């Protein structure tokens, strides 16, 4: 088949990789779940999924010796990367979840617990509207306001220059961040029905664009 790109989903023992794989299979047809350092080579796009606790995630990435090859691919070779939920939070410098833990430092920022506010139950679970701040490839042809499925208790705090979209839950929460070839989404596009699949399709197209 023509035009198929190599999408690789990083499996570090956590998270709903099967659902992420299902979505990309539908959109691209060629997607591989990888769990070893050598497998990252020749990826056209990398997906960092994740459900769970930050400290465990970073520990697993270390144990599987995935951090160095990830940095090499993303920083040196500029391979597009999409972090989903916990995968997005891993992109930050550090997180206060489960003690103080260092992240991948792909996008300057830190992960903090969402402060509790009266009337706003935590975790932040459910479909919430996303307000797009910047015209970005991920939101191509998706109408400005759309709801996506969130489920998290921590949020990504970073400089406005990296913020692509936010959501509001009594307070603003960064929903999408980007720095060059690194994208992070706090919600779960693989479980956000049509709009989510649309966003993932946009990411696939973005990868194709970088290959030309």
């Amino acid at each position, binding site marked *: 088949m023509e035009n198929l790109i190599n999408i690789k989903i990083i499996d570090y023992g956590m998270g709903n990789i*099967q659902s992420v794989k299902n*979505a990309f299979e539908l959109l691209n047809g060629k997607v591989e779940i990888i769990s070893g350092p050598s497998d990252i080579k020749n990826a056209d796009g990398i997906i960092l999924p994740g459900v769970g606790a930050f400290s465990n995630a970073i520990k697993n990435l270390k144990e599987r010796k995935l951090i160095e090859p990830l940095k090499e691919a993303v920083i040196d070779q500029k391979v597009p990367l999409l972090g989903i939920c916990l995968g997005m939070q891993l992109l930050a410098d550090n997180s206060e979840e489960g003690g103080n833990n260092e992240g991948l430092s792909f996008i300057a920022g830190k992960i903090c617990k969402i402060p509790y506010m009266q009337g706003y139950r935590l975790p932040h679970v*459910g479909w919430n509207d996303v307000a797009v701040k910047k015209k970005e490839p991920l939101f191509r042809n998706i109408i400005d306001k759309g709801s996506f499925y969130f489920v998290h208790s921590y949020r990504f705090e970073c400089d406005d220059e990296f913020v692509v979209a936010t959501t509001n839950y009594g307070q603003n929460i960064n929903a999408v961040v980007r720095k060059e070839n690194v994208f992070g989404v706090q919600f779960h596009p693989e*479980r956000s029905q049509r*709009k989510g699949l649309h966003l993932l399709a946009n990411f696939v197209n973005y990868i194709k664009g970088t290959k030309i």
Partner: protein
Amino acid sequence: MLKKRLIACLLMKDDLIVQSIGFNRYLPIGNPKFPLEFLNKWDVDEIVLLDISAYKQKRKLNLKILEILSKSCFVPLTVGGGITSVDDVQKYIRSGADKVSINSSAINNSKLITQIANIFGSQCVVVSMDCKLDKDGIYRIYKDSGKIPTNLVASEWAKEAESLGAGEIFLNSIDRDGSKIGYDNNLIKEITETVSIPIIACGGVGDFSHFASGIIKGGASAVAAGNIFHYIEHSTIIAKMNLLQSGVDIRMDSEATYKGREFDKNGRLMMMSREDLSKVEFTRGKENII
């Protein structure tokens, strides 16, 4: 704003989807693949798949079925039934679940809630509670598919589950299950006022107008039902239009919305008048990937 959620609950017994009446009578619907595909296309916000015979038969949910179902599911999928260890959770998630629901095993071994939360995060643990109003006017928890009474008071158990790390509570009323008279709003209110994690209300929905009360009167973050979604075309979309017309903020992304249409007092879609029908224009909808 965060939307309220409409959740479809699919009960699986011996690998078939069933309707449940009072936790003791079951009507077969059939192959799980079809209801899941339909609901997924009809704008449902989440799907909960429960294997109601697994725990009692000391087996796990059929992972092959889960894998197949997960492939056509693009909304969050919570799976329950037969989970007794962290290892089980790992297997369910590997097969395509996003969250797990635990009930009897959480009562028998409450540490399990914390163990799952520590590894997969709180958002992954839904504690399901089957409650019944006892003669002394106190809601208590029943286990093993609502058959065995426990001494646990519903509100206290909810509080404990929250402090142990539960991310959500799936609150089911045994009295109302299959009764078609609506949610037990007193129960829902009691629990939503006790804990600060989201509550999913379930049990008793008999017509589409019942959903809104669980949210407006009970204070639930999500409303769930099982039986009503079978045998009715666009069932979840019609439920959502009812919710929207009652003033509940809920996601509506579908092409068919029934906006502006009238519903009867039971929330059923009314037929259009001959005159209105003659004005309807049929246009081809956009092609959707799902």
